[in-house]
């Protein structure tokens, strides 16, 4: 009986390790979203304002458009996870000042929204059909999309002779 109780206790401990310590998955996402915000703003800041219209090849977005695309898409992914609307409108102004403002607004929207979630809430499935995804995937999708475009934007910096800021996660 005692052994059984100990066994149950250890299973509970392992099983509840995530649940016992608040919301570690939410906390992890908040931490990484904050690092992503800092790195994205550092990349945005490293490019001089006059080079915001620079693009590496004709088919690509300009540096400023990449920054706005990161902001707009991130807010959309997070809005889908939070089942609400993105606070960002159409992002036509691709100047450095506007893009940095948009990045700040998008990341703050995501981080504030994340902080209100629970780990159980992250497992909720939203959307229908092929667009179905868990709330976790909405946020992680936005995160990965940022890394994809920021990774390209860092090469724009290199092409302008600027060493990109140190990678952080």
């Amino acid at each position, binding site marked *: 009986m005692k052994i*059984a*109780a100990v066994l*149950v206790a250890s*299973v*509970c401990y*392992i*099983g*509840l*390790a*995530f*649940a016992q310590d608040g919301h*570690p*998955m939410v906390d*992890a996402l908040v*931490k*990484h979203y904050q690092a992503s915000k800092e790195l994205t703003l550092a990349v945005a800041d490293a490019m001089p304002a006059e080079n915001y219209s620079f693009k*590496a*090849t004709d*088919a*690509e977005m300009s540096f400023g458009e990449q920054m706005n695309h990161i902001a707009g898409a991130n807010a959309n992914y997070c809005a889908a996870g939070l089942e609400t609307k993105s606070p960002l409108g159409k992002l036509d102004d691709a100047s450095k000042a506007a893009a940095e403002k948009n990045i700040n607004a998008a990341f703050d929207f995501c981080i504030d929204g994340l902080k209100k979630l629970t*780990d*159980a809430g*992250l*497992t909720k499935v939203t959307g229908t059909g092929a667009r179905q995804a*868990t709330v*976790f*995937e909405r946020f*992680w*999708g936005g*995160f*990965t*999309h940022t*890394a*994809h*475009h*920021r*990774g*390209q934007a*860092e*090469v724009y910096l*290199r*092409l302008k002779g600027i*060493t990109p800021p140190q*990678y952080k*996660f």
Partner: protein
Amino acid sequence: MRKLSIVTALFAALAVSAFAEIDVKATIVKHLKTSRDFTLKVAEQMPDADYSFKLTPAQMSFGEQMVHLASSGEYFLSPMLGEKPKELKPASMKKADVIAFMKTSFDATIDKVSKLTPAQLTKTYEGEGGKQTGFDLLLGLLDHTTHHRASAEMYLRAKGITPAEYQF
């Protein structure tokens, strides 16, 4: 009565652990597979002759970017597995050898991740990047691949090749 409450507690614990495990690990494995397929498409798009191409002198060559991202699974998983990361290398830096190496490395990574226990995911590990849980390390692995693949896609564009459509 006591037995019943223990049994209830056991079921509750199993439900939570299954929930967390299925959702986190299965989701990460799914995205690791998409990441593998997308990265292999990018690797296939660059001609063999341009595997040594780099956009600026300070960067890695295209082939080096591919080897770097494919071999990084070892580093991200080693704390969880309690192993020292092995220094893995392709037979050569030729396209065929690099792609073969990537396939082997990605599949080994996916296999190892799919065998992780909930305890390995939740535990905190001390490493070069400070304190990180297994969950952090897995997200870091995905992010690191995305970061280097994005650079490599810029190399494709510089060679007049439109990169494969983004997948997540």
